[in-house]
């Protein structure tokens, strides 16, 4: 069994123990990001349209085509057949393989040269043809290297990105019977060219994919960089095209729209080297276009998932994915990799193959921001997680943890015990700063265990007099409900208290509703929606009294209430209305301090010379929330300037349950973040989501970092005038 086809757990272990994978993928992600952004900027300038406008426009084309897919298939077929091609619609992988094999057999063909085609990977064509006595040779260099190594692609566009050059030298050496210097990549490429050339000359058929199928003329469009596709369609007498039905587009102008977005998003090129358009069979030759369904119509008709069929396979969603950077595509995906692989695998290969990597997604939402067809991937991944949970794929520890979490009284009880334990540990010298000195298993040693403070945030608020007013905000005189967030309340109570003091400094009073607990986010994230609903109902009941505005220091809970609750109560009108009654009133603290609870400019200036920088909670940032830009808020209130931080919106690795389920992923992403923080040279790192504070602090403590990690509420409240 090769590295890419082993069961998920083995693939996971193998990828996290490869020391070279992470740095290689990190360098790749960073350089792609830079050149892709430059490409997108110049496209925006030239067209005087925003990327968002351009992608939504093309997404709309894809959507309307998919709605009437059968009409477009009929149009494509009529035009392609008029130009001499044969067009077949096939439902399953097996039918597609059988069709190709039958054509080969009847023409006496035993060698097929292939240009890159993800559909042929999807149906595992090479293996299946081999079983039927036909040899298929990949001619795209990356795909050929995979074939020689018996591996699957680990990226949609850069299929062999996981292979190191030493390994390439080895497998090429074996195939071509000579030695290669791993550092001489041009020599390897040149030999590969010669090695492949003989196959073109003797193959009976060439097979390609298609990036687009144009209905109005029955044409196919294929983009490549190597030129192998042109060879594979010119030398042999038979040309097979394998394409999913979603590749249909109505017209040439739509193809052009696609080409504006595809190469820029895929390889950060303005245009790929070869953009080839073929219409029909060439004189004296045959062309067979195989339009494959293989779960696509079911996908189109499936709630929430349908939009995933817009995908143009650019790979961008993997290029910004923090967990992908840690584990690579053999682990983060199945045959389709990256965020889209987490979604479409369910339909092409089944939930069994889709379930493994679901827990690796940190829900940061970066994928959708770069997707050139604006697929709501984060939402879809949560949907697939939910389905995978429903079909019994949730780990036992997770189920137990969530059960405990879901019961507010039991939760508080356990937390109380843990806090007492921490107090005891403090007495006997087992606490250093804010974390325990207890030994952890090796897999977890990258973080320190936070010591639980004795008193919860809510207790702290009740045990002090109200903060004096600094300046009357528009909300002065109001009473505001504070939603503490379950995690922050126990693990970082001071941030909850600080949030309350900042609200009070604007002249509003703070009320802390008694029975509040958890909005349901952890359960929702884990796909356990029944439990999430119960937790949400509890929170709604706790917060629905009165017409007061609700403020929370946890932006993740705001997102949970605004985005997830409507999904949890989709089929329950009454609860949906009650949920909206609460979520319409909820504000992230940062938004509050800019809006109704606005504090004046530079009111918290203290001139103590602290140098600080800000990590922005990725999910809120990628969702384009104004409040995510806490650096701007803190700069305004303190009159100081943040130190520049590289990748401020990239996830810190907390990712809810991910850092527990896949500790190496949480640690790897954290390492990337902490390196950027160290480079900023700050004394204090501030951030906005309690989960991130805890994760970043635990990592900094374990790694002996020089900076302090604070919730920005703590950072700001420390500068409020001390009340007598």
């Amino acid at each position, binding site marked *: 069994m090769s590295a890419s086809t082993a069961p998920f757990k083995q693939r996971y272990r193998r990828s996290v123990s490869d020391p070279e994978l992470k740095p290689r993928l990190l360098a790749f992600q960073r350089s792609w990001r830079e050149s892709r952004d430059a490409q997108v900027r110049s496209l925006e300038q030239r067209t005087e349209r925003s990327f968002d406008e351009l992608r939504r426009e093309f997404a709309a084309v894809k959507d309307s085509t998919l709605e009437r897919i059968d009409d477009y298939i009929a149009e494509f077929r009529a035009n392609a057949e008029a130009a001499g091609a044969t067009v077949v619609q096939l439902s399953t992988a097996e039918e597609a393989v059988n069709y190709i094999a039958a054509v080969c057999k009847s023409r006496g063909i035993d060698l097929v040269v292939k240009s890159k085609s993800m559909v042929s990977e999807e149906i595992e064509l090479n293996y299946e043809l081999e079983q039927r006595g036909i040899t298929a040779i990949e001619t795209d260099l990356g795909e050929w290297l995979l074939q020689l190594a018996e591996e699957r692609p680990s990226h949609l566009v850069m299929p*062999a990105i996981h292979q190191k050059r030493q390994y390439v030298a080895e497998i090429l050496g074996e195939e071509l019977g000579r030695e290669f210097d791993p550092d001489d990549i041009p020599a390897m490429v040149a030999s590969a060219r010669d090695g492949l050339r003989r196959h073109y000359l003797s193959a009976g058929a060439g097979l390609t994919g298609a990036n687009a199928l144009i209905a109005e003329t029955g044409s196919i469009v294929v983009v490549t960089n190597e030129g192998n596709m*042109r060879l594979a369609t010119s*030398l042999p007498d038979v040309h097979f095209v394998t394409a999913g039905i979603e590749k249909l587009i109505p017209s040439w102008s739509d193809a052009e729209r696609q080409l504006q977005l595809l190469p820029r998003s895929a390889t950060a090129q303005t*245009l790929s*080297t*070869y953009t080839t358009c073929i219409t029909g069979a060439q004189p004296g030759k045959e062309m067979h276009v195989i339009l494959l369904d293989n779960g696509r119509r079911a996908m189109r008709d499936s709630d929430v998932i349908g939009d995933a069929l817009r995908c143009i396979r650019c790979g961008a969603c993997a290029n910004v994915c923090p967990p992908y950077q840690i584990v690579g595509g053999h682990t983060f995906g199945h045959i389709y990799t990256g965020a889209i692989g987490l979604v479409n695998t369910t339909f092409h290969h089944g939930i069994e193959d889709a379930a493994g990597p679901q827990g690796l997604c940190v829900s940061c939402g970066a994928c959708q921001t770069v997707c050139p067809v604006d697929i709501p991937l984060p939402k879809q991944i949560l949907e697939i997680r939910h389905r995978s949970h429903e079909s019994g794929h949730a780990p036992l520890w997770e189920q137990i943890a969530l059960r405990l979490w879901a019961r507010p009284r039991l939760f508080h009880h356990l937390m109380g015990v843990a806090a007492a334990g921490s107090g005891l540990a403090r007495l006997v010298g087992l606490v250093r700063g804010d974390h325990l000195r207890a030994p952890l298993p090796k897999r977890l040693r990258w973080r320190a265990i936070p010591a639980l403070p004795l008193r919860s945030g809510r207790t702290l608020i009740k045990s002090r007099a109200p903060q004096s007013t600094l300046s009357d905000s528009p909300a002065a005189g109001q009473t505001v409900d504070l939603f503490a967030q379950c995690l922050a309340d126990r693990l970082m109570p001071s941030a909850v208290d600080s949030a309350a003091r900042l609200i009070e400094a604007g002249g509003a009073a703070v009320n802390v509703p008694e029975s509040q607990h958890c909005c349901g986010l952890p359960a929702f994230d884990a796909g356990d929606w029944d439990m999430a609903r119960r937790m949400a109902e509890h929170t709604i009941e706790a917060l629905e009294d009165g017409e007061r505005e609700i403020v929370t220091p946890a932006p993740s809970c705001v997102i949970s209430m605004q985005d997830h609750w409507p999904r949890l109560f989709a089929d329950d009108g009454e609860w949906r209305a009650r949920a909206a009654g609460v979520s319409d009133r909820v504000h992230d603290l940062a938004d509050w301090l800019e809006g109704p609870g606005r504090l004046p400019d530079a009111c918290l200036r203290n001139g103590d010379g602290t140098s600080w920088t800000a990590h922005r909670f990725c999910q809120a940032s990628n969702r384009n929330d104004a409040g995510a830009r806490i650096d701007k808020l803190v700069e305004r209130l303190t009159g100081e300037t943040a130190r520049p931080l590289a990748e401020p919106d990239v996830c810190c690795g907390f990712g809810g349950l991910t850092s527990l389920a896949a500790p190496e992923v949480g640690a790897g992403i954290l390492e990337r973040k902490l390196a950027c923080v160290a480079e900023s040279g700050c004394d204090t790192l501030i951030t906005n989501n309690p989960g991130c504070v805890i994760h970043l602090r635990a990592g900094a403590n374990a790694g002996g970092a020089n900076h302090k990690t604070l919730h920005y509420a703590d950072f700001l409240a420390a500068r409020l005038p001390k009340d007598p």
Partner: protein
Amino acid sequence: MTTTTNRTALFAEGLRAAQGEFVQCRSWDDVWQYAESLSDETPVVAPAAYVHLQRGESPDEEDPLRSIADRSVGITIATCGIAETGSVLLIEPAPIDRAVSLLTRHLIVALAEPDIVDELTDGFRWLAQQPRAAAYATFVTGPSRTADIERSLTIGVQGPSRLTVAVLP
């Protein structure tokens, strides 16, 4: 309105960004001289360019591809150029039309300056109205390349490793 001169300048810029080479020629004689200066081998000439050049070697009609595989220098002609990207559009319905652009090591593409259009859109619009041309049409942007081994950009894989566009008045 873009003028011809700065359209050409833009085209040259796009082409160079894609590792292609740009030469300005006054006549087909210039193109030929340039081609001959590159190698001792006689350049092979695609049928569409032969009409203008009337010299050089033509691919064999029976087996055009095998007859010229890996020859040093080839000359073909572009239907249009795209200023935005530095691409040339090759219309090559039959294998004999394609042989030169597929298999020679250094490809020279002759392009008439007035045929340079602003954007890909213009090229596509033209193509959409030419069903026969769309039988096999390729926008070529620079020489062939791969980054499949450790992302290291290597020019010249399976197609030409050098691409020069010779712009004619």
